[in-house]
């Protein structure tokens, strides 16, 4: 059995699209003086050839399989009809799983719970096959506009005609920003993954709550406080054990503390490795996280349990000398470098405040 199957994780190379249905969701103006809008509902699935199937499989893989998706569970209680519909689709009681009807209910629910500030767009329900069993995806997609070129001739002269396209919705280079993916594990339990990258004016958490909680009726599986603490401890251990150079070690710890103090809502293991660690330890860092049981690649950040540990950092020498300060102060005022005979040297620049005894 492959390692992925053992952990019930999905191998997205096997993701094959069987059918999908698209509904259009207009802006939902709530003010009484604004025109009422209704979703444009499809009656049947969209025809698909192998090119389109591979295209959508690639898009879902690019988002859900990227390592930036959260593992989620159905929230209880919830007003969203999505959990019950997903259960019916993955565990059908009869031959007719009600795919089209389920998609319409999801579309109507999305339209109903959107505010007037949410842009219109499309909601797509996708039925897919996996290596074992099937998967159901819900894609929320915004429409795009673009321009297309066509070779033409005017008055016998060659040129390009330009078409302005108002009905684009996915191009090769764009990612799916909001995807919910659900599949059955070997124990017939439903496992969910949500990818949500919003570019907008609201805070990341607020927007995420709408898609994850209000629309999909889900919540994060792992408590973000526990995930964040586990990540912090494992990352610190790794840096201290695997980076020999004192200066680079301090730099990595500084980055770790900065990341935890930043405004970013999420932490991505791969992203942290790529952005902050030297190339020769990036893979080892990712492997270390998996080895210590940090199964998720991405999780919501919550530093509540480690708040006291992230305000300051300490550089401790074997001769019992310590330098303590905030990450920012360390970065600007402490220089670490190699000294003779395998030793390390720290240079602190600043105005002396006082010298005193300490227990």
């Amino acid at each position, binding site marked *: 059995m492959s390692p992925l199957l053992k952990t019930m994780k999905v*191998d*997205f*190379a*096997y*993701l*094959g699209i069987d059918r999908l249905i698209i509904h259009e969701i207009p802006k939902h103006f709530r003010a009484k003086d604004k025109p009422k809008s209704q979703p444009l509902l499809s009656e049947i699935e969209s025809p698909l050839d*192998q*090119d389109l199937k*591979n*295209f959508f499989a*690639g898009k879902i*893989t*690019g988002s859900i*399989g*990227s*390592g930036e998706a959260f593992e989620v569970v159905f929230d209880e209680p919830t007003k969203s009809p999505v959990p019950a519909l997903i259960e019916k689709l993955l565990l059908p009681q009869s031959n007719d799983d009600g795919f089209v009807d389920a998609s319409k209910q999801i579309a109507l629910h999305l339209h109903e719970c959107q505010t007037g500030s949410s842009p219109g767009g499309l909601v797509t329900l996708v039925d897919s096959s996996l290596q074992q069993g099937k998967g159901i995806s819900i894609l929320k997609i915004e429409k795009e506009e673009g321009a297309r070129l066509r070779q033409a001739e005017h008055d016998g002269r060659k040129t390009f005609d330009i078409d302005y396209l108002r009905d684009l919705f996915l191009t090769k*280079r764009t990612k799916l920003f909001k995807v919910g993916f659900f599949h059955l594990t070997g124990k017939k339990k439903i496992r969910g993954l949500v990818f949500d990258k919003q570019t907008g004016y609201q805070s990341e958490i607020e927007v995420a709550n709408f898609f994850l909680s209000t629309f999909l009726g889900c919540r994060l599986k792992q408590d973000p406080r526990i995930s964040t603490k586990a990540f912090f401890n494992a990352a610190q251990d790794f840096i201290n054990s695997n980076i020999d150079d004192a200066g680079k070690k301090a730099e990595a710890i500084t980055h770790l503390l900065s990341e935890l103090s930043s405004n970013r809502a999420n932490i*991505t293991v*791969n*992203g942290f*490795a*790529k952005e902050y660690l030297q*190339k020769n330890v*990036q*893979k080892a860092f990712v492997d270390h996280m998996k080895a210590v049981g940090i199964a998720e690649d991405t999780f919501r950040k919550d530093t509540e349990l480690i708040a006291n540990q992230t305000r300051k950092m300490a550089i401790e020498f074997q001769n019992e000398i310590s330098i303590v300060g905030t990450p920012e102060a360390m970065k600007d005022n402490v220089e670490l470098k190699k000294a003779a005979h395998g030793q390390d040297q720290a240079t602190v620049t600043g105005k002396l405040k006082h010298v005193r005894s300490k227990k």
Partner: protein
Amino acid sequence: MTVRDAREQWLKERPQYERLCKAVEKIIKAELRLAGIVAIEVVSRPKDPDSLLRKIIRLSKTYDEVTDKAAARVVVQFRDELGPVCEVVENIFPDFKKDDKTEELKDYESGYQAIHYDVVVSEGNKIGGDLEGLKCEIQVRTLCQDLWAVMSHSLSYKAVLTVPPDLKRQINLLSAAMEIADRTFLGIQTSIGELVPATVLSAVTSLERHFYRLTGRQFDLGLTHESVVYLLELYEPPELATVGKTIEDFVAANSDKLSHVFDKYSATENRPFFLFQPEVILVFDRLVKDNFRLAEHWNAKYPPEELEDLAIAWGTPLP
């Protein structure tokens, strides 16, 4: 049996031999692919009715003595590929009679060279059914041998009762020249192989064999050599020394997944270019084991979007 009876008999039996030809061709192609052997051509045909009757009349054979009512031909590039192809044929058809035409030539002679098999379809052949017991001729030859066979047949010099000595000499010289060309092609191929570092040769050979077995497709050999040399820079020295084994182990562990990915994209035109090049196996290996370094190394030479698409095809998008 009169000539007319023979024609009638053959016209009745020919559809069955047509099916035999298709079955033999199909199984030879499949088994060659499994063995990673790339043949230039695998073709088959039931004998043309007039051709069958000519054989009966000219060579005084009976209807049943004509053993090539169904015939298949395998053509390869180099002489050293004949042996492996013969092994495949003998494994498919344990009931065979082999006739190496080269052995019939004296050491000072040149002429038609090929390996002919008369095989019988038997129970264990995976063909079976109502074709059991039928005979088929299978010819195995190189491209040069095939050219000689085709041209000498076109020249029809065998039909002339007396060939003048000078013409005979020209024919013999041409036949010898074809054999020299055949041997020299192999010699050059071998010499080129010796110029390539052993690790690269080992990797390329292994990749090509597995790729052909999994896809049955042709590929750009020049690009493969260039890409393999470049991608092998990602392997540390201890790993590099055993890269052939690394490839074998990777393919063995991921055979089902590789087949699945290749099948998924084989029916579409919209796919990463490198997906149907043998070096993609190395790319997949590095995606699993060292994706950060792979991305940096790849982007320095090849379009980044190609690697992104390959990573998605493998189910492991890049960070």
